[in-house]
């Protein structure tokens, strides 16, 4: 279990992060989300013992990072923003070295390195100098580095940066796999990514926590309206008339494309008050007028919208 208590970091006069307070339970996958410069990296560096906080502390399994730094760092595998690699070493040699300094027993080292290289799919580049590797491979060697001593906690700062779509998928699966028995904290500024992997999100803005909840709660909690997409076969003017007559519909706007007009279709983006029976009433009203519904799809409030709402000014 990780407790982050009143973590604060000043860069000179400037606030890096202020009064960050949260707890991560064992086996959780938590995502830190925020625009660039919101303090994700700063928080992660402090949690991993790479940077001393200005005030506040991090407690891991009862060990305070300021009092017992080694107890904490031995439990954490950290992938920083820029993977800490030795460019003059070969990938395999580098992982052996890391295994040695992270305390993997000599007899188990070889097997462990093999296993990790397989997991991070870097086996094919083991004999190449790290300086000659592509960004994607460097990132994966960095990921392997974080996992090498099999730590119960993984802190990954933007783990999928620089990977191609297929590799991103692989890494996501890997993280989900790892998250079954480990605590994983990862950061990203791509919302789609964290909402796929993480069960809980911490949204940061300007060095403070803007929101912290499960993905579902975040999606439902922020707004009191629902949205849906309506496509009908009929004249736009007539449909608008129906829309404005139905109670519970707060707003609507037409979305039109050339193809739809040609086929006699028209679409509307409709907002309704929550818990109203607007959709039911609407379908009855349209049927009464003889306008067939082609599509009626609930849109909900996307996480993207929530994110923008929380981090916007």
């Amino acid at each position: 279990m990780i407790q982050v208590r009143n973590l604060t970091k000043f860069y000179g006069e400037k606030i890096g992060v202020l009064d960050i307070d949260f707890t991560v339970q064992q086996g959780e996958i938590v995502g830190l989300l925020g625009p660039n410069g919101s303090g994700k990296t700063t928080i992660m560096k402090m949690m991993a013992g790479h940077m001393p906080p200005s005030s506040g502390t991090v407690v891991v399994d009862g060990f305070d990072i300021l009092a017992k730094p080694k107890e904490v760092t031995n439990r954490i595998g950290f992938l920083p923003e820029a993977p800490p690699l030795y460019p003059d070493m070969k990938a395999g040699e580098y992982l052996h070295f890391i295994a040695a300094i992270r305390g993997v027993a000599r007899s188990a080292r070889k097997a462990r390195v093999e296993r990790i290289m397989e997991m991070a799919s870097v086996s094919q580049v083991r004999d190449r100098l790290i300086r000659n590797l592509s960004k994607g491979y460097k990132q994966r060697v960095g990921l392997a580095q974080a996992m090498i001593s099999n730590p119960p906690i993984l802190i990954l700062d933007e783990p999928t940066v620089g990977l191609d779509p297929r590799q991103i998928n692989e890494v996501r699966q890997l993280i989900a796999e790892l998250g079954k028995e480990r605590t994983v904290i990862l950061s990203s500024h791509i919302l789609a990514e964290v909402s796929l992997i993480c069960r809980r999100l911490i949204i940061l803005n300007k060095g403070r926590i803007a929101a912290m909840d499960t993905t579902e709660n975040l999606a439902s909690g922020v707004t009191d309206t629902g949205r849906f997409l309506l496509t009908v076969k009929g004249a736009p003017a007539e449909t608008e008339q129906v829309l404005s007559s139905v109670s519970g519909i707060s707003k609507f706007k037409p979305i039109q494309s050339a193809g739809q007009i040609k086929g006699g279709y028209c679409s509307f983006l409709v907002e309704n008050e929550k818990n109203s029976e607007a959709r039911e009433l609407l379908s009855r009203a349209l049927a009464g007028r003889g306008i067939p519904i082609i599509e009626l799809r609930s849109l909900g409030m996307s996480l993207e919208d929530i994110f923008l709402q929380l981090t916007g000014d």
Partner: protein
Amino acid sequence: MLTILKKEIKAYFSTPFGFIFMGIFLLMSGIAFTTYNLMGRRADIYGMLGIMRTLSITAFPVLTMRLLAEERHMGTDQLLLTSRLSVVDIVVGKYLAALFVLFVTLLANSLYVAILFMYGEPTLGAILGSYAGFFLLGASFTAICIFASALTENQVTSAIAAFGMLFALVIIGSLSATVRLPVLKDLIRLLSVTNQFEELTRGIFRFGPLVYYLCFSVAFVFLTIKVVEKRRWSQAG
């Protein structure tokens, strides 16, 4: 500590640094050997190493410039600091790796001794003593240079700072002969690293210079450890 030592020795010979150091050192000692021993027809190694003790201040910064500065530049220092290694392991491991390269270089240098034995009658004891003395002097130089490497994350800055410090020590050493003011004279004598070498290698083995060099090396390695430790807990970013 052994892990770091092995890694650094490997790094010396998989990057140009080890070879550049050996190259510069052997080139300069070759010139010194030719002028002092071959052209001067002398069979002691002391004179050659005596020339080297000032010339070699250009070579030592090469040996140490990357040791700590590069780690910091690449962000790998944090990797080491958050591993199971202690700061002492890291710094001493790196220091010993540099000493190993110095040792190998002096070993290569012994080719000159073979030449002396072929054409003259040198005293083996004196030669070994001279080399041991030079190794101790080199250990002190290396300690100063590794300290310079801990101060910055730029390798060039670290090399220039190391060179500056060594140069100052050599200048102080050369002053010691001329300054006559009572307290200052002793102080300068105390700081003149290069002059202790003379005492040690003049053929008489004495504990004074030996202890002096050991203390000097330990002091600077200790300072290096403190610098690294301090930055670990006070760095801004």
